[in-house]
């Protein structure tokens, strides 16, 4: 009985630790919704700051957190020729290691973005970092190289002088990447243990920063890609195409979200749809032209959808009908996607003000907290804290441990 009890306790610890991970773009599951609770609602550059770590360069990527470690990417050196992965202790903020690769692809981009725009992803044992240069690298939790690839070395025309920003995600043994650009465009499932291709499919050429997400449809996993030819669902294990929605063309910036079996897509019209069976086209539930998000990806939670646009208009809509429940205007310019956690919506503007709204049908502004810095990366929550990544630093907002 005693070993079984120990096993159960260990399992509980592992399970609860997993629930708090923020393992990819927009946190666990990539949907912008965290299970973290008791998060701080009041902070400044000094108040409720658990730790702050300087970063060697800019990045639009959010930190990813698992197994007591925080991984973050940055770009540095003249003309962004160095791509950097850093690892910090989640409790103390102590830098555990830093690794760099020299860029092998073009570093030209729009001034709004940079080479550390894609967010890395971690499975707890390893971290997988993709840069806009096409450099793709995997380190273990101690900073030892597991494998490295230059996607530009593999496919020489890959590149986009505006910059690339699509983040990878993981399904089983597959590291799922989407490289739509001005050259050879493709999506691939890469063996996360070795870095070798498991499958690879062609994608349309052009600018696209929409990150893939994995959803469950009829008990099957599907990875969704959105581009100028609409949305495609593929088997994440094989790359085999499952269904297409050609009318749901992308807006190039924000990515989907998913909840209660419904996908919410920032297409030319913001669209809620239910994926169909087999190869059938999805059932469009509603569309709205009022819910255009700009750069910020939407959040869906408990029957409501929250959409923030670049000018700071926050819309809360009924997830079943698309009808606007409330609208609230915030000051500033917004690039970071909102995060929902602890029953609250955290909306961060570029100047460093995070407005906390109650995540409910009733509009209620709970707090606004400022740190004077430049923030374009999406906030995430883990370990009872909120992690904010600015151009120059990583902030861990939470009570000291």
């Amino acid at each position, binding site marked *: 009985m005693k070993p079984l009890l120990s096993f159960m306790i260990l399992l509980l610890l592992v399970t609860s630790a997993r629930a708090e991970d923020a393992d990819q773009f927009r946190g666990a599951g990539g949907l912008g919704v965290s299970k973290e609770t008791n998060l701080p609602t009041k902070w400044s550059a000094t108040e409720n700051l658990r730790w702050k770590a300087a970063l060697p360069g800019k990045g639009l990527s959010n930190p990813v957190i698992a197994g007591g470690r925080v991984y973050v990417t940055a770009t540095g050196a003249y003309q962004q020729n160095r791509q950097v992965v850093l690892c910090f202790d989640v409790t103390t903020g102590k830098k555990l290691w830093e690794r*760099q690769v020299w860029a092998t692809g073009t570093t030209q981009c729009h001034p709004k973005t940079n080479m550390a725009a894609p967010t890395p992803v971690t499975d707890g044992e390893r971290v997988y970092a993709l840069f806009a240069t096409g450099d793709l690298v995997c380190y273990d939790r101690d900073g030892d190289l597991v494998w490295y*690839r230059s996607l530009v070395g593999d496919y020489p025309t890959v590149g986009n002088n505006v910059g690339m920003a699509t983040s990878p995600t993981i399904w089983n043994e597959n590291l799922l990447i989407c490289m739509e650009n001005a050259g050879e465009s493709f999506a691939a499932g890469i063996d996360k243990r070795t870095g*070798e291709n498991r499958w690879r499919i062609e994608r349309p050429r052009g600018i696209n920063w929409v990150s893939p997400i994995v959803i469950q449809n009829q008990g099957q996993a599907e990875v969704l890609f959105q581009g100028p030819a609409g949305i495609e669902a593929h088997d994440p294990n094989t790359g085999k195409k499952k269904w297409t929605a050609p009318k749901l063309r992308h807006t190039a910036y924000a990515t989907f979200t998913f909840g209660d079996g419904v996908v919410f897509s920032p297409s030319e019209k913001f669209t809620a749809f239910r994926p169909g069976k087999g190869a059938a086209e999805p059932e469009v539930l509603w569309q709205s032209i009022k819910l255009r998000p700009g750069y910020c990806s939407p959040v869906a939670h408990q029957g409501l959808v929250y959409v923030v646009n670049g000018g700071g208009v926050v819309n809360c809509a009924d997830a079943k009908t698309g009808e606007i429940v409330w609208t609230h205007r915030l000051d500033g310019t917004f690039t970071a996607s909102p995060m929902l956690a602890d029953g609250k919506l955290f909306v961060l503007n570029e100047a460093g003000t995070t407005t906390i709204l109650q995540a409910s049908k009733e509009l209620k502004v709970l707090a606004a907290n400022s740190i004077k810095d430049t923030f374009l990366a999406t906030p995430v929550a883990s370990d009872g804290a909120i992690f904010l990544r600015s151009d120059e630093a990583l902030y861990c907002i939470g009570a000291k441990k």
Partner: protein
Amino acid sequence: MTRIMLHCGACGLLWALCATIGSGQDVASLLIRIKAVGKEGVGNVEASKAWKELVAKGPGVMPDVLAGMDDANPVAVNWLRAAVEAIQDKAAQTGQKIPAEKIDAFLKDTRHNGRARRLAYECLVRLDPKTPDRLLPKMLDDPSSEIRRDAVAVKLKDGKDSKFDSTDTQKKYFHDLLNHARDRDQVNAISAELKKLKVEIDLTTHFGFVTRWLLIGPFDNVKGVGFHNAYPPEKGFDLKSEFLGKADAQVRWKEHATEKPLGMIDLNEAVGKLKGAVVYAYAAVASESERAVELRAGSNNAVRMWLNGKEVYFREEYHHGMEMDQHVGKGVLKKGRNEILIKVCQNEQTDSWAQLWSFQLRVCDALGAATPVTNMTEKVK
């Protein structure tokens, strides 16, 4: 807690022991296995095993790993970089000695790979933060662009902070520094200092832009076909040639010289505001010796470049931003006459931000210093 400490201590001791006595394959064969990484992750599994063995050998192998970068491809260079970083981290944790003298000697041998030498420099800086003060003043002409950049930055800051005996001394200081600088931002910063002293620098000449060209066109690029079609100018240069161009219009070579900053050629001005069109620009330059060069172009349009009839670069991308040196083709100048051809394609986008049809091109070395050439492009009689 004590058990954990003992465990950590034992691991450290084991690692240090392995590092001291060496194990498994020799360093050379491990480097070969790492440098065999191929496209699409082929060879990663073997390289990963070799990487672990290499790192386990400890800091004594650092000079060998750095030297291994000399003939490694850019992918393998990054694998080896990670090895050096990991070895130095582990050595710092276990107290292992880094062979600083050998790394210093490696850095000073400028025959080695520039990136490897830069990494050697960073290893030394990590060991001794005063390393830049010791080394950078002598590295203004370093063949590693990153090292040279840091050396120029120090000298530029010193120049700005200094009080000079005379304006002439100050002018000479910044003039000399300008000759060492290669990166555009530093060249601009030094030029700005000289401008304060009433000295104007002709940056078009400084960077080596070609300003006198022969142009021919337009040829058809409706639906982007022209980027892929090899029109007659790609098959050889003859000043007297006439061809059927876009919409069957007769086209012939015509002279075009520019006085715009940084050698910019506006094809909307030179040829006409056209969409779905291709223009070729040709220049002949004379070199006093055979030498490796880079043709560096900037253009918002899709471009192809040839040097002496050999294609050295192509990029089919439209209106995603223009930057100096964004397109780089590598080739070799012959002693005597050399022919440069660039094809600049305009697409059919109607957006207001998609109307530029222009290019600039310069001839320089791998670090970006202008290559001394004489423009001997023919004149149209």
